[in-house]
């Protein structure tokens, strides 16, 4: 599946929920299913500090593909982190830098990615793109 197909699938999944409570409960579940984050990566280099919650993001680049692992100290944030990992992980740098992310809006979680929320999510998305750009230029200069 390409990035847009995954986004459409997430939108489909969320369309089943009739109210915000169910959406949040689903996010909490998603947060719980996020693969464990290697504790040795919980260091300042990989932290994205928000005033409200923290996010950790660790990238690996192998055979032209970026794999992200991530975590957060808040469960709802972690649920959204899980969604972002689902969309961005296992992609080429070009796919990531060229992606148009629309699913957040469509599943009613836009407020969670507003700059004023300061929960680390917006910065996490920016950071994923920055890693993609960095890996891309590394690849080109090989």
């Amino acid at each position, binding site marked *: 599946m390409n990035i847009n197909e995954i986004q459409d699938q997430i939108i489909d999944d969320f369309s089943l929920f009739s109210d*915000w*409570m169910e959406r*949040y*409960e689903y996010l*909490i579940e998603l947060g719980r299913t996020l693969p464990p984050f290697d504790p040795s990566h919980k260091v300042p280099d990989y932290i994205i500090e928000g*005033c*409200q*919650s*923290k996010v950790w993001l660790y990238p690996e680049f192998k055979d032209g593909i970026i794999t992200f692992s991530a975590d957060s*100290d*808040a*469960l*709802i*944030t972690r649920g959204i982190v899980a969604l972002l990992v689902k969309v961005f992980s296992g992609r080429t740098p070009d796919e990531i830098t060229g992606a148009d992310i629309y699913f957040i809006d469509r599943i009613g979680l836009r407020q969670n990615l507003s700059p004023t929320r300061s*929960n680390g999510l917006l910065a996490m998305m920016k950071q994923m793109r920055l890693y993609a750009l960095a890996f891309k230029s590394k690849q080109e200069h090989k």
Partner: protein
Amino acid sequence: MKLSKTIEEIRADFPILSMKVHGLPLVYLDNGATTQKPEQVIRLMDELYRTANANVHRGVHFLSDIVSEKYESARETVRAFINAPKKEEIIFTAGATASINAVAFSFGEKYVREGDEIIVSEMEHHANIVPWQMLCGRKNAVLKVIPFTDEGVLDLEAYRGLITDRTRIVAVTHASNVLGTVNPVKEIVAHAHKHGIPVLVDGAQSIQHGVVDVSDIDCDFFVFSGHKVYGPNGIGVLYGKEKLLNDLPPYQGGGDMVATVSFRKTTWNELPFKFEAGTTNFTGAIALAAALDYLTSLGREAVAEREQSLLEIATAGLSSVRGVRIYGTAPRKVSVVSFLPGDIHQYDAGMILDKLGIAVRTGTHCAQPVMERFGISGTIRASIAFYNTAEEIDALVKGVRKVTEMFD
């Protein structure tokens, strides 16, 4: 003590309180961050811009005279409200933060040298830490910190031990924005004065909760913000003792703060204008006075009593929820409750409470050292005003119970 109005009448004075959020009635419990404004303040601001807008102290014309008179009368209202000896000791600033920065700069320029010491407490919010740190950085001075106990009470013995012959000023909060603790500022001031050291009291979290008397406290500086006492934002007050203010250099230069200006030499205007450079927020100052008048007309002691009884309800209700821990259990508190429901992250809890229409603050409350002291990343804070009701507190407790169920 009885409020001069019923709670229904009071709530009707605050239009925003009847608002709905996410389809539910707003339960506003974030008063420690900003308070809502009564019609009396909102209407006055509107009216001022319509009928009394011209620059203060600048013109001889009719409008300028009217505004200048209202502005100076606002100064008198503030003076009376905190029982300061003189009107000239009341300086209008942009807020408590601006007031503290002004003192840290002016006082620091005049009195702080390399190796001198400044004392703050561990429960200060960042506004009463960072300006002093900046001063210490400029002057190579040392910042010393009064610790607090697990209950959130300042360790006065430690405080007395911190004072040396190099201590230049003590800056301490009257009430903690996170723990709610009311500090024994009168005692703190008296001890500092024995050593000839002046004290700044940060009243940002005390001014709205009852009677504050700066003459009785005998502090040398007292600061507060308008937006936390039912007035507009962008206006605040710096009270300073006349002699000290006269000794200090101004911290900003500009219009109105000067007596004569030439390119050879400029002389300063007298108090309070020396510290009010440029066009001040006169509309804000006049509206702030209206907010203070509103509180006075309700009865400030009655306001405090009502808030204390709501605080008791909140403390008992939240304590009854399994896993909830309250941070700040001092015997004397303003109506602020900081808590965490077990291991649940404050941001998660805040998101769910928001969806239930409940406005609380989550995070570090601009007081990271307090979080560090308890080894936590933040709390949920419910800060209560007299216009809140027992039903609203009940909604909060139910909301927190719901949160614990969801994240169990």
